[in-house]
């Protein structure tokens, strides 16, 4: 999804897209959830993925870091294709566990239900992947984590356990955990859907801040107004296929497909 000015110098060597998904299929048994999705996100893009429930948007996001194994298709992160082999009846299987783990540290996921590790403090959660997966020295990781906590406004909660935080605080801690691995791409899976309405704003403010900073992100969301404000590109998924996509001004103001028109009418 390059913006128009990116194409100004077609002869220059372009850096590979941050995320490139080609012909992605996913079936649960006989139920085909994704029916051939192709998507490209350049570095710095904020891609909002919208669609009704059951449209496959969360499944698509979870396929990108292989939490869900696709049945068919190809996924590349920064030009590196995730190695997969045919697992027969089970569809595709990752064939290079080391590569997958390395790529996963370049992607950071923020979950709908936060999924903070409950036996660790907020600080423990944030330094866990840097220290125990990437091998960053502990004091370095702590120094970085303190900056991130400050940024998401949780510095005073650094030693609290997740169970003692509000949903909004937990999700902000989870965003700090994601930032701690300094990811190439951030994946947001309905980050505000599990929050009480009055807590949604504080989380969206942090995400908007990251978008302004030029973070590459894929954001599955139900917050239509928010998606319109922060996204550089909006993808509308319906029934396992991309029904329509484009810049938010176009998608929201002049939807071409009838389904998208109906969808926007019901959610706005």
């Amino acid at each position, binding site marked *: 999804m390059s913006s128009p000015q990116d194409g100004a110098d077609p002869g220059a060597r372009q850096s590979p897209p941050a995320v490139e998904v080609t012909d992605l299929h996913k079936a649960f048994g006989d139920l085909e959830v994704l029916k051939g999705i192709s998507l490209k996100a350049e570095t710095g893009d904020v891609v909002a993925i919208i669609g009704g429930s059951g449209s496959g948007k969360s499944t698509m996001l979870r396929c990108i*870091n292989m939490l869900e194994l696709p049945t068919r298709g190809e996924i590349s992160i920064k030009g590196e294709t995730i190695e997969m082999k045919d697992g027969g009846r089970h569809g595709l299987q990752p064939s290079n566990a080391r590569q997958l783990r*390395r790529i*996963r540290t370049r992607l950071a996921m923020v979950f709908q239900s*936060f999924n903070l*590790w409950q036996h660790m403090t907020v600080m423990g959660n944030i330094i866990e*992947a840097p220290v125990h*997966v990437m091998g960053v020295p502990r004091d370095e990781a702590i120094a970085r984590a303190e900056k991130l906590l400050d940024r998401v406004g949780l510095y005073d909660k650094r030693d609290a356990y997740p*169970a003692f935080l509000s949903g909004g605080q937990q999700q902000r801690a989870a965003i700090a955990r994601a930032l701690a*691995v300094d990811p190439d791409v951030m994946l947001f899976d309905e980050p505000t859907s599990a929050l009480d309405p009055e807590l949604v704003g504080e989380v969206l403010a942090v995400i908007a801040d990251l978008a302004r900073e030029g973070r590459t992100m894929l954001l599955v969301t139900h917050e239509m107004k928010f998606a319109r404000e922060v996204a550089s590109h909006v993808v509308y998924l319906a029934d396992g296929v991309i029904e329509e996509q484009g810049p938010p001004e176009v998608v929201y103001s002049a939807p071409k497909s009838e389904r998208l028109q109906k969808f926007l009418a019901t959610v706005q």
Partner: protein
Amino acid sequence: MGPETRSWREPHRLVLIAIGIGIVVLAATTMRWDWLPRYSGRLIDGVGTTLWLLALTSVLGFLLAVPLGLAQAAGPWWLAAPARAFCTVIRGTPLLLQLWLLYYGLGSLFAYWPEIRQSWAWPYLRQAWPYGVLALTMSFAGYEGEVMRGAFAGVPRGELEAARAYGMSPWTAFRRVWLPRAIHRALPTLAGETVLQLKATPLVATITVVDVYAIISRVRQDTYLTYEPLLLLALIYMILTGILVVAFRWLEAKVPVKGA
């Protein structure tokens, strides 16, 4: 916080303390305790035996319980089935029976085996305590295996998913998230099971291991006293239980859970 920080000066507690002091004074003044100095050394040794039996078998039993629980919670059927069978058999039969089967059964079979009689292990295998340790370890593993199965299965999927999403290998995810999270969940049950394990240790006296219970039995035979040695024994087990309970509370408080 919890009830442990409540004051001991509440009325009902004062009454209980007064009754306790009364019993101690009554027992000290009206009963015979002249044998106590003569046996004090052996009693301390006996408590020592009881404690190391408890510590060794709880630790070994727990180390066995982790794979037993994991196999049942997430293993393939050919691992889950034997693990479940082991836990069912151990939990379904009396510990005394297991102890005697091992000591009188297995122990006497070994004696007919020249290879074993000539091996380095024989000096140990002809003693009673290895069978006591084995039986108590297996018992603890059987009960704890079941507890750990539930604890492993109860760790929220999302937290394990997050571990994968952040690039953890299966081993790292187990070591950093799944196991500590499961132990944390199992800790309150584990505390209770360890107290039960303490109170299971005197069974080893039936196979000639000299723990604190065996010493007290000896006192009763020597002095023809009934109540005094048994009262002392009760007091000793209560003090040990109290220490265990406080230790586990301290462990549990290290990672607070909401609502506890």
